[in-house]
Structure formats: structure tokens, C-alpha cells
């Protein structure tokens, strides 16, 4: 059964269907979108249960069709653990976002087409699945670039006051990176001279160190802009702040992961030597991003911008984990991508609820929400705590693994990065205090608490965060083999403890 093709096809068809609905059938459009996204989720789960982590072949559910033989391009899809969890992430987030942005499109301001919004949403989902599933570098690139367009329209025509500025900035910035990557992609094909873009066959095809370095840069810059890594990050706060909450969730939760995913999948495996050569640089960028993003986040006065900057800090952690090139760090980074999707997603959505009620995204316009809307404030706190990687919440596991894994090989960066936990406490708790604590601001008086729809949006996310916080094993078991294969292709040596401790002492108890 061609699972992945179906996973891509269903949302596309859904999106067309929604687009073809008659004018004014907004409610129907929303319901249809929700239904389609749920079907996709179901299919994803069905696929995931058939996934066998232990299996020897690199990509499962693999399909390969000749697409453009003249260019050696195949429609090649398939997933390993890493891709699978990211696809699952998208599949989980989309229905939630649909539900969350139920009223985003039909805002009173201007007459915007509701169905267009949801149609774009489904189109985006198809591309998100495709970009993670692609096993053909060219196909990956196609999705990588094409994804921009729906998101561009979602920000541009449904966003906030400066939406068009933000949208254009987002599109051009990403496009610029993408075009550099295009050159690298072409060069990869030409130099590798394998006559194909299939990823597995390109591994190890580039041997000349100098070439590797140039191609690496071509790919890396694109991914660094996408992720975004310091100093290529300034588009994110604008885009995330202007985008409607739902779009922001997908933007930061999934689209940006394509960058870090690309680093892990393509930069490392296609250009192992170059990756090692550039590791110091990348680590510096990541660490700077971690601390810098956190500090700037502390200084923000706009809730969504603040969250965006926290994400910049988090992407620093992910990139650091990827390039530390130890099993723990890489697995942690992959898990981080998933968890960050959930936790930041929750934060953005709740911020969206607050803004929708209060009509302002300035933090100082709030205060004492906890008194009038305890549930809302409670969920906000939990989401926030997941943002500061509180143990017992999923983000802790990934952050801990990234840090400890990095520490195995690069002590100083890991230590500096760890200071991020203190800063995280400051920006999250300070925001929470200003929003939810203290005397209730008069504008906040009578703010209504979460209604059932909003609870349905938030509860699944928080449930996932808590569950994965106590029992991450299922996901890690999926990720680890894939990560090991990846690192095997990079051929890095695992670290050895100085004084290896003996295993647990044996003995029969009572």
C-alpha cells in the first residue's frame, strides 16, 4: 500500500475540494478541512504502527517512480525514524491548528475568503508530508521551495497589521537561501555524476574536500535561514508575530524543522567531512543563538515576538545537537524537533486565544488573567513550563539529551548552552507573571475562560507534552536506529567514559 503517496494525495485532494466549495459555505469548508486532516492523522497512525524500527533497510514504505528522467529526478518517498516522527508531528498539529483557527479567517476586518485559508492549510500539509518523506534530493528541494507559497499567502492575507511586510520578508529571505541551495543541488548532481538524485545513491558520492565544503555551504545556508539560526533569524519574529496563530504554529512548529531536518539528513550525510570541518562554526552560531535568542526574548514586549525569539533559542539547541554528532545529541535534537513543535505550538495557540480575547499582543495590556480565567492561565503556565524544559515535560528529555550529548564531545559550548535554562526561566516566568499574575487589569476583567473547542485544541497538546515527558521511550526507540544509521554514514566515533561504571550489581531481592 503506497502509504506516503496517499498521505500526500489526500490533503491535496482535500484542498482542491475545499477550494471548489461554493462561496459562503464557510462552515462546510471548515468541517471538511477538519475531516480531511483527521483522516490524514488516522492514516499516519496506521502507517506508524506498521513501521518497524529495527528493520535493516534504511527507508520504509519506500516508493520510487521515474519523474523526470532527463534530470535523473524520481518521485522517491520513504521514511526512516526521523522522518516518521516529523511527519507524525505535522499530522498531529494540522487538525489542532484547523480547530484553533476556526475563527481566524472570518475576522471582521476586510472580506477574506475563509475556504481559501483552509484550502491553503491542507495544501501546506501535503507539502509538509512530502518534504519529510522525500528520498530524492530534487524532490525535497521542490517541496522545500513550494511550501513557501501557501505559507506566504496565509501570512500575507490573513495576518496582522504589517502582514505584507512580514510575508514578503519571509518569502524573499527563504527564497534567497533556497536559490543558493538550488545551485548546490545542481552542482551535487553534476559533480556526483550518478545520473540520479536519489539520496541513498548520493551518499559518499562527493569525495573532494573542497567541493564538499562549497556544497555544504550551499545547503547549510538555506537550512540556517529556514531553521532559523543566528544571524539569519530576523524574518522569524516578524513572520510569526504577524501570522495568524494557526499559521504561526505550523510555521515555527513544522516548516522551520525542515531546516534542522535538512542539516541532519543532507548536510551531515552528503558532506560528512565538510560537516566536521564546519562544526565549530555551527556550534558557535548555535550557542550564540541560544543565549542571544533568550536574552532578546526577555526584552520583548510583544507576546508572539517573545515566543518567536524563544524558538530561535531552541533552534540553537537543535542545531547544536545535530552537529555535536553524538548519538545522544542527535536523538535529542530529533526529539527536540517534535517536542518543540508541541510546546511552542501550544504557546502560540494560547497566546492566540489571549490576543483574540483582549485584542492586543502587548504584554503590558494584560495582568491577573489567572484570577478571571484560571484554566486559560493554567494551560498557559504548563505550556510555558514546557518552554523552559521543566523536567517531567517532554521538552526536558530532549534538551537534556542534546546538552549531555554535546557535553560528551564539546564541553564549553554545552556549558554555555546550559545557561540557557536560567534565561528560559526568566523569559517564561516573567511573561507569565506579567500576563497572569498581579491585580487584574480592568481590560482583562470579564475575560471568558476557555470554551470547549479551545480545550479540545489545547488538551491533546498538553497531554502529549506530559506523556512524552514521563515516557519518551516509544519515540526514542523509533528515532535511535535512524540516528545511528545517519551517524554511521558520517563515521564519527562514539565517546568513551573515562571510568566506565560496571552495570547494575546483580542479586536476588526479597
Amino acid at each position, binding site marked *: 500500500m503506497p502509504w506516503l503517496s496517499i498521505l500526500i494525495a489526500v490533503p491535496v485532494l482535500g484542498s482542491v475540494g475545499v477550494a471548489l466549495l461554493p462561496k459562503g459555505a464557510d462552515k462546510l469548508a471548515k468541517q471538511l478541512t477538519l475531516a480531511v486532516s483527521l483522516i490524514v492523522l488516522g492514516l499516519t497512525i496506521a502507517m506508524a504502527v506498521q513501521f518497524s524500527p529495527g528493520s535493516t533497510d534504511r527507508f520504509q514504505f519506500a516508493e520510487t517512480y521515474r*519523474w*523526470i*528522467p*532527463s*534530470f535523473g529526478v524520481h518521485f522517491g518517498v520513504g521514511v526512516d525514524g526521523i522522518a516518521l516522527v516529523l511527519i507524525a508531528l505535522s499530522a498531529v498539529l494540522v487538525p489542532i491548528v484547523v480547530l484553533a483557527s476556526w475563527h481566524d479567517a472570518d475576522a471582521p476586518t*476586510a*472580506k477574506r*475568503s475563509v475556504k*481559501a485559508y483552509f484550502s491553503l492549510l491542507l495544501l501546506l500539509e501535503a507539502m509538509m508530508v512530502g518534504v519529510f518523506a522525500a528520498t530524492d534530493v530534487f524532490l525535497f*528541494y*521542490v*517541496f522545500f*521551495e*513550494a511550501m*513557501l*507559497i501557501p505559507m*506566504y*499567502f496565509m501570512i*500575507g*492575507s490573513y495576518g496582522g497589521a504589517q*502582514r*505584507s511586510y512580514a*510575508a*514578503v520578508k519571509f*518569502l*524573499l529571505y527563504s*527564497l*534567497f537561501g533556497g*536559490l*543558493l541551495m*538550488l*545551485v548546490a543541488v*545542481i*552542482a551535487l*548532481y*553534476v559533480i556526483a555524476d550518478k545520473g540520479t538524485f536519489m539520496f541513498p545513491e548520493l551518499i559518499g558520492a562527493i569525495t573532494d574536500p573542497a567541493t564538499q565544503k562549497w556544497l555544504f555551504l550551499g545547503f547549510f545556508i538555506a537550512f540556517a535561514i529556514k531553521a532559523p539560526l543566528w544571524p539569519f533569524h530576523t524574518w522569524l519574529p516578524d513572520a510569526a508575530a504577524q501570522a495568524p496563530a494557526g499559521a504561526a504554529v505550523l510555521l515555527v512548529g513544522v516548516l522551520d524543522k525542515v531546516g534542522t531536518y535538512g542539516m541532519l539528513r543532507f548536510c551531515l550525510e552528503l558532506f560528512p567531512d565538510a560537516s566536521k570541518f564546519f562544526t565549530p562554526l555551527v556550534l558557535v552560531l548555535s550557542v550564540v543563538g541560544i543565549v542571544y535568542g533568550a536574552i532578546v526574548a526577555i526584552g520583548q514586549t510583544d507576546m508572539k515576538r517573545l515566543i518567536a525569539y524563544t524558538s530561535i533559542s531552541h533552534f540553537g539547541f537543535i542545531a547544536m545537537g545535530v552537529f555535536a554528532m553524538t548519538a545522544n545529541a542527535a536523538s535529542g535534537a530529533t526529539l527536540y524537533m517534535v517536542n518543540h513543535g508541541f510546546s511552542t505550538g501550544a504557546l502560540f495557540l494560547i497566546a492566540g486565544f489571549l490576543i483574540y480575547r483582549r485584542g492586543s499582543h502587548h504584554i503590558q495590556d494584560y495582568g491577573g488573567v489567572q484570577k478571571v480565567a484560571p484554566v486559560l492561565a493554567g494551560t498557559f503556565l504548563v505550556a510555558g513550563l514546557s518552554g523552559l524544559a521543566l523536567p517531567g515535560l517532554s521538552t526536558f528529555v530532549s534538551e537534556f539529551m542534546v546538552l549531555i550529548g554535546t557535553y560528551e564531545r564539546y564541553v564549553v559550548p554545552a556549558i554555555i548552552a546550559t545557561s540557557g535554562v536560567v534565561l528560559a526561566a526568566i523569559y517564561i516566568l516573567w511573561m507569565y507573571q506579567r500576563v497572569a499574575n498581579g491585580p487584574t487589569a480592568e481590560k482583562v476583567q470579564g475575560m471568558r475562560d476557555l470554551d470547549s473547542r479551545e480545550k479540545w485544541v489545547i488538551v491533546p497538546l498538553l497531554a502529549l507534552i506530559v506523556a512524552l515527558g514521563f515516557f519518551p521511550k516509544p519515540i526514542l526507540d523509533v528515532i535511535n536506529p535512524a540516528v545511528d544509521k545517519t551517524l554511521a554514514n558520517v563515521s564519527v566515533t562514539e565517546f568513551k567514559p573515562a571510568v566506565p561504571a560496571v552495570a547494575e550489581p546483580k542479586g536476588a531481592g526479597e
Partner: protein
Amino acid sequence: MNDIAAPTIEYGQLAPMLLVFGAAVLGVLVEAFAPRYLRRSIHIPLTLAALVGSFALVLVQVFVSGVPTSPAAMGAVAVDGPTLFLWGVIAALAFVSVLLINDEDNFVAQAAAVPGSADEEDAEIAGFSQTEVYPLVLFAVGGMLLFTASNDLLIMFVALEVMSLPLYLLCGLARRRRLLSQEAAVKYFLLGAFSSAFFLFGMAMVYGFAGSVGLSDINAALPNVGGQEPLLVLGTALLGVGLLFKIGAAPFQAWKPDVYQGAPTPITALMASGTLVAAFGALLRVFWVALGNFDWDWRPVMWGVAILTMVAGAILAITQTDIKRMLAYSSIAHAGFLLTGVIATGAAEQNRDALSGILFYLLVYGITTVGAFAIVTMVRDAGGEAGHLSRWAGLGKRSPMLAGVFAFFLLAFAGIPLTSGFFGKYAVFSAAVAGGVLPLVLVGVVSSAIAAFFYVRVIVLMFFSDPAADGPTVVGPSVGTASVVAVAAAATVVLGVFPEPMLDLADKAASALFVR
């Protein structure tokens, strides 16, 4: 010299071209003898039939009688793979352009009448229309066909003029904003004549160098370069000037924006698609066939031209306020992208890839361009087409369908994946990288990033900004225009998702390169 052997002409091979010329002549006769009220109704089927016929004849040659392997008409005309491909492309583009031309009130009622004068009013009331347009178009198209096929500089010069002269006139025949139209005509004419003089002088120099104007002879003469190299250099340079002028490469691009803006939009469409295709065909012949062994000398120069063209086109387009001017600059930038392919010469293998890339690019760019201009004709306000970009604000809200299609075309120009434009760009750039002109490709992508800005800017205007109070009206398109848009959109989508068949065709067309 008393016995002159009668030349042998392979009429079969030249049929597509001859058909167009024949139809053109017929058109003139129609103008001469048919009563005014009948002319249009005769011209339209005649013209369309001629173009369809020539397209069909091309297909016949490709699939039935097979691609010739030697030049025709005593080596004056080369009907080879690339020629046939480009003939097909030109015929198709001309066909859709004619569909646009059919649309009423694009053309002046009576060119001779002074704008705003009484007799202009009379002409309009009488419902005249300048039906000479059709034969003129056919002559121009015939010229294009010959231009791409000419295997001999003399023929090329003639073809150049046959192609250009009707276009000069057509530029001046806009129904509205006639001052602009006439100005465009005079500018295009003077500069065109000027540049063709350069071409001719270059031709003379080359003749002086090689003793012949046959492309293959020139190529043959290259190895034994004697003391007359200055002639060759001068000739190459001036030929280049003439051709680069036609494709609108910097620094010879100055005419393009003015002419594109002033000319009647359907004619702009024809020029932006057909002329560009034809000019590139000729350019390739001159520089690959005639000067093939001289490439070590002309490539570096072409580098400079290409870079200048791409950057100038992209940067200048950013601040344009008129949609047609903006598209003109975008076509300059695209000419630059195509030049990277022209430069990417090397072994036969490499040349083939580059050639097929260029052929494919020309096809997809031409179709999308015609579609874009077709939409431009549909957005009108009191004074005719709403050229100024500010008038396009909020179009996406008023007529989403139209704006959506236009946005799609713009994305294709910008080379976003899943549009035909992307594969065109990819085909050329990949050939260029393989040909070892990576830096040029880098410049190319950077300038296409810049170029993306102004395409995106139009989308922002149409979709993200609120409509102006007295916004332009979108006229219900005539069948012709509608079908043009539909065809262009379809082609852009299909070639953007399944380019393979067309790529194959281009590969086959390029497989044998040019006959000598």
C-alpha cells in the same frame, strides 16, 4: 561564367515558412480587393489557418518525413532539429498571440487619422479597423521563422528586416494612448535600423575575413586566422551587437521597456515571445555554428553581457510602476538567464544539454509571457488598460480568479517549483553548471532572488492590499483572450508538473545540434 546552375530548393523542408509567407501575400491581396466589411472575417480564418498549417507541417516533418540532416536551398537555410522545434514554438506562440490580436479595440481604427482629430472619430464611428494588422503579423512571423533557420548571414539579415519592419508598424497601431504607441514605433524603428546597420557592418567585416557569409564557411575559415583577425573581431562584435539588441541584452536593452509599454499589448506579447525565440535561434546559430571555434574569444565578453543583463534587468524592474514596463525588464532578466546557457558550450554532449535547456526555456517562457500579457489586456479602466501598478491594488479581492492566474504566472517567472518556469531555469542553469560557468549561475540565482521581489510585489498589491475605491474594471474576456489565458495557464501547470515529454522533445531536437 555563362552557365548558371539553377539552384535546388527543398520546398518540402521550407513548407512551414513558405505557407506563412504565402498567406501573408494573400492577406495583402485581401486588403487590396476584398470589401472593408469582409476583410476581418477573411483575415482571421486565413491567419489562424496559416499558423495551424505551418505548425502541422512542422509536425509532419518531425514525425513523418524525418529531420533533414543537411541544409536546404543551397546551404542558405538550415531546417534542422532546433529549427523545427523553434518553428513549432514560434507558430504556436504566434497563434495564441493572434487570438489576442483578434480582440476588438486593441488596434487603431485608422492609423492615418491624427489622434483626437475629427476623422479619427469618424473612423471609429464607422467601425473601421486596421485589418492590415493580420498580413503584417504574418510577415513578421515568417521573418521569425526564417531568422531562426537562416544558415547564411545574408539570409539572416533579410529575415531580420522581414521580421522587424512589420513589427515597427504594428507597434504604432494601438487604439488608445496613441501618442505613446507612435513614440514606441519611432523609437523601435530608429534603434532597430541603427542596430541592424551594425549587424550589417559586422557581416561585411566577417565577409571580408572569410570571403563568404555562409555560416559553415566562416567556421571553416576560423582555423587559418591570418593577418585579418581584426576583421573577425570587429565582425563578431558588431554581429553580436545586432543580435543582442534583438534579445534585449544590456547594454542594448534600452528600447525594450519603452517599446513594450507603448506597443499594443497583443503585439507586445508577440514580440516578447516570438521575437525573443527567433532572436535566440539566430544568436545560437551565429555564435555556435559560425563562430563555434572562436568561443574562447567571445565567451568572456558574453559573460560580461550576461551578468550585466541579469543584474540590470532584475534591479531596474524593482522600481517600475507600469506593469508592462515591469514585464519588459523581467524579459530582459530572462534573456540574461538564457545567455548563461548560450555561454555553456563545450563538448558535443555539453552543447546538446545546453541547447535543449535553452529550447525548453524559450518554450515555457514564451507561453507564460503571452498568458501574462493576455491578462494585462483584460484589466482596463477609462483610458484603456490600467497599466499603472497602483491600479492593480486589491484585484485579488475583486476578481480572485484572474488575479490568481496572474499570480501563478508571476510565480512561474520567479521560477518557483511546480511551475514551468522552474524547470526552464533549472534546465539552463544545470547545463551552465555542467559547462563550468558556476559563477554566472550564482549571479543568476542572486538576481532571480532580486527579481522575485517585484513579482512578489505585484502579488502583494493584488492580494494583500485593499482595493482602490475606483479600481479598474475587469472586462469579461472574449473567447480568444480567455482561451489564451487558459492555454497558457494549463501549459504552465502541466510543464511544471510533467515536463518530461517536452524535455524529451527538446533533447531530441538538440540531439544532432545544428547542421552545418
